[in-house]
C-alpha cells in the first residue's frame, strides 16, 4: 500500500486522536503551571448607625471580586510554576507525617490517600480476577454442552452492566438494613454498618470489581481452553500426571499469554478506578486518583473549578500510567524488532 493511500485511510482517525487526545494532553501540561483566579480588590466600606449627637460610623475593608463590563467576575491567569503540584502533593504535611511516623496523618492528605487506595485496589483485584475467571472457565468447560450458552449469558450480565449502576446495585443490597446487611447481622449476631468505615466500603468495592471483570477474564480463558492441545494432555496422563499437575503444567502454560493480556487490560482499567467511588458515595472515606481530578473539575459552591490543581493531579496520574506501561512497551518493541 502506498503511503498516500495509507494516509487517506488512517488520516481521519489519526486527526481525531491528535485533536481530542494529544492536544488536550499538551494543554493539561501547560495548564498545570498556570492558575486562574478571580481578581480581588480591597474596598473600604463605611457603615453608619444613627447615634447622638453624631452617627456612629465604622469603616471596614472588604475584599471583593471585580466585576467586568459584562457583569461577570474578572479573572486573571498567571504563571505559578510548580505551585499547583505543591498544592496537590502537600509535601510539607507529608514531611511532618513521616517525621511523626504517623500513617494516619499521611492518609489525611487527599493525594496520598487516593494513591494508596488506587494501588492496593489494583494489586488486590488482579489475582482475584485471574483466579475467579479461570475457575469459571474450567467449570463451564466441564459442564454439559447445552448448559454453556445460558451460563455464558448470565455471566455476561455483570460485565455489560453500566459500571455506576453495577456499583449501585451492590450498594442497595447493603445500604441501611438492606437484605445482605441484615443477613450478616443475623449470621454474626452483631450490629453492622457497612457504610460507616472505610474498610467495609473497600471490601464491597473489591467484590464489585471482581464481579464486574471476572466475566471478561472468563470469556477469554474459555476461548483459550478450546485450543488446548489434546495430545499434550494425553501424554501428560500417560506420564502419570494427576488432574492438578495437568492444570499446573499443561493448561496454565498454554493460557499464559492470555493471562498476561487479561492482567494488562485489568491493570490499565483498574488504575482508572472511578465509578465505584460515585456508586458507593464513598468520598468521605475512600477516594481514587481519577476521582481526585474529577473532584477538582466539578464546580465548588462558588461555581469555581480549580483547573490548575486538576491539571496537576492529572499529570501525576499520567506518570503512574507511564510507569505501568514501560515494561509492556519495551517488550512489544523487542517482539516487533524480532519479527523483522
Amino acid at each position, binding site marked *: *500500500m502506498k503511503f498516500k493511500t*495509507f494516509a487517506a*485511510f488512517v488520516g*481521519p*482517525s489519526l486527526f*481525531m*486522536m491528535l*485533536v*481530542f*487526545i*494529544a*492536544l*488536550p494532553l499538551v494543554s*493539561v501540561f501547560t495548564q498545570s503551571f498556570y492558575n*486562574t483566579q478571580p481578581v480581588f480588590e480591597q474596598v473600604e466600606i463605611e457603615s453608619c448607625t444613627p447615634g447622638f449627637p453624631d452617627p456612629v460610623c465604622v469603616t471596614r475593608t472588604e475584599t471583593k471580586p471585580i466585576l467586568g463590563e459584562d457583569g461577570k467576575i474578572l479573572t486573571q491567569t498567571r504563571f505559578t510554576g510548580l505551585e499547583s503540584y505543591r498544592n496537590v502533593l502537600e509535601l510539607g504535611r507529608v514531611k511532618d507525617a513521616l517525621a511523626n511516623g504517623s500513617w494516619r496523618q499521611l492518609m489525611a492528605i487527599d493525594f496520598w490517600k487516593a494513591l494508596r487506595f488506587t494501588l492496593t485496589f489494583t494489586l488486590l483485584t488482579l489475582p482475584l480476577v485471574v483466579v475467579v475467571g479461570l*475457575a469459571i472457565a*474450567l*467449570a*463451564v468447560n*466441564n459442564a454439559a454442552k447445552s448448559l454453556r450458552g445460558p451460563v*455464558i*449469558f*448470565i*455471566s455476561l*450480565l*455483570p460485565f*455489560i452492566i*453500566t459500571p*455506576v*449502576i453495577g456499583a*449501585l*446495585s451492590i450498594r*442497595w*443490597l447493603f445500604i*441501611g*438494613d*438492606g*437484605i445482605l446487611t*441484615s443477613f450478616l447481622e443475623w449470621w454474626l449476631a452483631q450490629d453492622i454498618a457497612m457504610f460507616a468505615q472505610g474498610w467495609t466500603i473497600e471490601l464491597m468495592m473489591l467484590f464489585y470489581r471482581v464481579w464486574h471483570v471476572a466475566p*471478561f477474564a472468563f*470469556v*477469554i480463558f474459555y*476461548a*483459550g481452553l478450546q485450543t488446548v492441545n489434546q495430545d499434550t494432555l494425553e501424554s501428560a496422563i500417560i506420564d502419570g500426571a494427576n*488432574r492438578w499437575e495437568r492444570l499446573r503444567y499443561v493448561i496454565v502454560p498454554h493460557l499464559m499469554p*492470555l493471562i498476561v*493480556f487479561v492482567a494488562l487490560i485489568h491493570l490499565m482499567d483498574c488504575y*482508572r478506578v*472511578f465509578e465505584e467511588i*460515585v456508586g458507593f458515595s464513598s468520598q468521605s472515606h475512600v477516594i481514587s486518583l*481519577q476521582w481526585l*481530578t*474529577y473532584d477538582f473539575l*466539578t464546580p465548588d459552591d462558588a461555581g469555581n473549578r480549580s*483547573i490548575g490543581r486538576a491539571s496537576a493531579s*492529572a499529570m501525576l*496520574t499520567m506518570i503512574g*500510567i507511564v510507569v505501568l*506501561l514501560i515494561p509492556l512497551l519495551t517488550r*512489544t518493541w523487542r517482539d516487533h524488532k524480532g519479527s523483522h
Partner: protein
Amino acid sequence: MSTPLSMRQSLSLRVGSAGFLIFWCLLAAFPIVWIAVMSFKSPVDAFASNPLDVVIGPATRADGNGLSIIDIVLGLAALWASARFALRTLPRMVSRLTQPGTIVIGWIIAVSGFAVSFVIGFFVILPVILTGLNAIAGPLSTPLIGLTTVHYQSVWVDNEFYRNFLNSLLVTTGVVTVSLTVGTLAGYGLARSGSNLAFWLLILALIFRALPHSVLVAGYLPVFINSAEILRPIFGDAAPTLYGQPYAVIAVLVAINQPFTIWMLRSFFHSIPTELDEAARVDGCSHFQAFRRVIMPVMWPGVITTGLFSFLLGYNDFLVTSLLLDAQNQTMVPAIAGYFNRETTTTDQVEAIAAAVSITAPLFLLVMVFQRQIVSGLTAGAVKG
C-alpha cells in the same frame, strides 16, 4: 464415544464443579435481578429486611397494587407470545419484505416497530383488559403478589427521564456511527500496511487507551467553556460554546474510543485474506473501491461487534458526560446521580432504583440478541492479536 477411564472425573470433582458454577450464576445474576424486583415495590417492601417481604410485597399489596392469578397468567402469556413472535415470525417477515442490501434498514424498522407496539400493547392495552376481567372474575382476582409501577411513572413521566433517554440515544447513535466510519477506514489501512509507521500508530493508540479519562477532560473543560471567545476570530459571532453540546461530547467519546476501535477492527480485517483485495485490484478497483465493494460486505460481523462495544462505551460513560454536559441535556447515567445524591426519603431511593433498572433493560436485551458477537469481540483482541 465413551471417555477413557483416566479422563473420567470423580464424583466429588463433578459435584464441586457444578456447585461452583451454580454459585457463580446466582452471584452474577442476583444483584441485577434483585434491584429489578425492588423497583416494583413500595418503599417499605423494597427495603424490608426479610427477603420474602421484598419478593411478595405485603405493604404494596395492602395499598391495593397487586397481581392476581389472572394478571400473572395473562401477562406471562403475552410475554411468551411476543418473545415467540420476535424470535420466529419477525426474522421471516424481515427477510421476505426487504430487498437485498437494505436488510440493515429493514431490521432497524422492524425492531423499532416491534418495540413501540410491545410497549403500547403491554403497558396500555393489557392493563385495560385486565381491569375489566378482574372486575368480573370474583375470587380469582384477589391480588397475590404486590407490584406497582408507580416509581417508573414518576421517573419517566413526572421527572421527565425520557429527555435523558433521548439525549443518551443521540449521543450513543452519534458515537457508534462516527467511530465506526472513521475506525473501519483506519483499521483497514493499518491491517493492510506492514510499515513501521503503522506499528508506531498502533502503539500510540495503545498508550492513548491507557489514559485515564479525567486527564483528558481536564484538558477539554477550560477550552470548551471558553470556546466562544477562542473561536471568535475564526467563526465570528456564530462561534459556539462547546460546553453542554451533545455534538462536542460525541466527538470526545469517539476520540476516546478510537484506539480500542482500531485495534479491534484491525484484528478483524487481518482475518480476511489479502487475496480478496488483490483480486479486486486486478479487476481494476482502486484501494478505496476494493475496500467498499469487496471487503466491507464480508466485514459486517466485525463491524457489528465493534459497534456493540462503541455503543457500550457511549451508553455507560459517566465521567465525560457528567462533566461536559449541563443539566438540560444530561444523558441517563449521570442523571441518575441526581437521584441517589438526593436520597432524602426512601421513595427517592426506590425511584433511583427504577431509573437504574430502566438503564439496564436495554443492555439486557443487547446481551440477549448479540451474545455471540460480544463473545467473539472479546476473544478477537486476545486470541488473535
